[in-house]
């Protein structure tokens, strides 16, 4: 069999200049952001920050200019997103839209949908949420029961419940994956994607779901005879499964899959600075080597995406290795620094450690569980 390779692009003058510009902006914009806030990574929500990113042309960067994009390369976009993640910037107000909803609209949307929404995403003024998971459809996404029925006037009537919907309470839009014909037994057949206006849809209600830290990012979204206009259909009726798999490829491919706990690594290095400990050197050397290798693999995924290839297996490998790396980090930190995790501590290391320990179970759940990813990799190996 042919080995899987990850052809990473090499930094050039243009990306170096962009990187310096982004770093300069972030240093100033985030000067007062505490390490514990930075540790929230892509859960931090700040519309003002997203607008500032949009004003600099750093959202929707690869899209055509006529939709508000900058027609820059995937590598340039990668530079911007990895810099914002590494700095712990509050990116949640634009993250999902820039990463997956925008590209899905660009690929499948009508001209009117693209004209109406893409420039707003690129300006940092439009927040999206993901309408995939349901109470009975987690890893088994094809089991969705939410249903949209076409009415006589062409509009849609939607009934069902979406769950774990991050920032649904803030979002302007959702891309809803649901059934438009048949029954859940039909699996991939009869599913579609619909564009939902989260602020102006009668029959739509958002309820908060708090996580184990007591934070409110997740929601439950109810559709009770909710009415969507005829032009809400995104892409082709009945092709929802193919479309949603494409959307997931964007969701799984990025550097957030190994950078979401980088603040802990930064604090750990701060705590060990000046240490002569051989164990510390070796452990940090190991973590650094993993991180750098993951980054090169992830850059390789971005470059395959840009070439129009489907790197879903490469992305699954990066996400699985990345989650394992991030989940190992708190215990490695605990073995090197004699300090108790404490969210309320004024010691940054202790606070960030406590946060990362509690955040870590989600790393191998969100965006595709470890089990689903390993199934995808095994299929590529010809085992299933």
């Amino acid at each position: 069999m042919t080995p899987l390779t990850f052809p990473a692009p090499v930094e050039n003058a243009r990306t170096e200049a962009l990187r310096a510009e982004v770093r300069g902006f972030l240093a100033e914009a985030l000067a007062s952001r505490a390490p514990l806030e930075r540790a929230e990574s892509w859960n931090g929500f700040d519309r003002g920050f997203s607008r500032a990113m949009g004003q600099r042309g750093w959202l929707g960067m690869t899209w055509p200019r006529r939709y508000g994009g900058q027609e820059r390369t995937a590598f340039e976009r990668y530079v911007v997103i990895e810099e914002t993640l590494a700095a712990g910037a509050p990116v949640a107000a634009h993250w999902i839209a820039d990463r997956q909803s925008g590209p899905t609209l660009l690929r499948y949307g009508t001209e009117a949908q693209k004209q109406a929404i893409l420039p707003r995403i690129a300006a940092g003024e439009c927040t999206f949420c993901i309408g995939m998971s349901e109470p009975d459809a987690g890893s088994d996404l094809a089991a969705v029961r939410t249903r949209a029925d076409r009415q006589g006037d062409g509009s849609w009537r939607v009934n069902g419940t979406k769950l774990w919907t991050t920032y649904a309470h803030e979002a302007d839009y959702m891309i809803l994956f649901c059934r438009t014909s048949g029954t859940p037994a039909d699996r991939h057949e009869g599913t579609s994607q619909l564009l939902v206006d989260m602020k102006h849809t009668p029959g739509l209600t958002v309820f908060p779901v708090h996580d184990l830290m007591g934070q409110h990012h997740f929601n439950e979204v109810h559709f009770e005879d909710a009415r969507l206009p005829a032009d809400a259909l995104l892409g082709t009726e009945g092709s929802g499964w193919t479309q949603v798999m494409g959307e997931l490829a964007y969701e799984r491919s990025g550097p957030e899959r190994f950078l979401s706990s980088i603040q802990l690594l930064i604090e750990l290095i701060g705590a060990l600075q000046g240490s002569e400990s051989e164990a510390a050197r070796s452990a940090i050397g190991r973590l650094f080597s993993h991180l750098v290798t993951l980054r090169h693999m992830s850059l390789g995924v971005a470059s395959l995406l840009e070439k129009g290839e489907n790197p879903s297996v490469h992305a699954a490998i990066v996400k699985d290795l990345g989650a394992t790396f991030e989940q190992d980090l708190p215990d490695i930190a605990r073995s090197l620094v004699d300090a108790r995790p404490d969210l309320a501590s004024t010691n940054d290391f202790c606070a960030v450690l406590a946060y990362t320990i509690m955040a870590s179970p989600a790393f191998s759940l969100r965006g595709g569980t470890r089990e689903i990813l390993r199934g995808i990799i095994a299929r590529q190996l010809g085992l299933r």
Partner: protein
Amino acid sequence: MEDISQVVFDSARRLLGELADGMTPGAPLSDRQRADGWSRIEEMGLPLALMDEDKGGFGLPLADAFELVKICGRHITGFPLVETMLAHRFAAASGKPAPDGPVEAPGELQTAQRDYAALTRSAQMTGALDAILALTIAHVSDRRQFGRPLSAFQAVQHSLAVLASEVAAAHAAADHATGVLAQHGEGDAFTLAVGIARTRIGEACSKAASLGHQLHGAMGYAREHRLHLYTTALWRWRDEFGTQLFWSREVGQRVLAAGRDRFWPMVTAA
């Protein structure tokens, strides 16, 4: 990839494949095998593969030269071919006479030579990891228990997914260090890239050997089986030209010296 490289790869695969098939796992090569095999290797010019073209090498681009080393890693032949390649390269560079016949170890090395040898081992280990993955996939597809192939069990599929991911990471790490050598030549950046590659690949070797043996069951532990040719080689190679601990400390020391504020810039520069 250049045509000449493809020709070299194909002939090396054919020859090394035949030599590997001809050896009995666990048994020493016969005198005849030893003499015939090495003369075929020399005929093809393989011991000179890492030399510059004007010194008798193939003139392969750097990435292709290390691809050839990966091919060597995929075929355990019982000959110290990669060690001899290194010995020829280092002898020529220091104006010493070319070694005669197979060389078990290239001898005392300066820092730059150690880095180069460590990267060569990285490529070779990556090739051996490919072989372990291929052997393991073949075994779990073939072997039946409880009335179905082992590959039908989800626990087996997931272990193999982990093995394949480790192998993919090893390739990425080796290829990147090769790229740094091609772009920057020998020096600090290369030493760091080699340290990263060796640290990451050494870990992949440990996991892959363990998973490969687990998935092969008792059969892979028998002397007649080919699996141990690769796993025992990896258990040696991962600690040669700098041990696992040596390389991880080399990397960690640099990261800790740079400190908290220089950490991320160091990641993007590496």
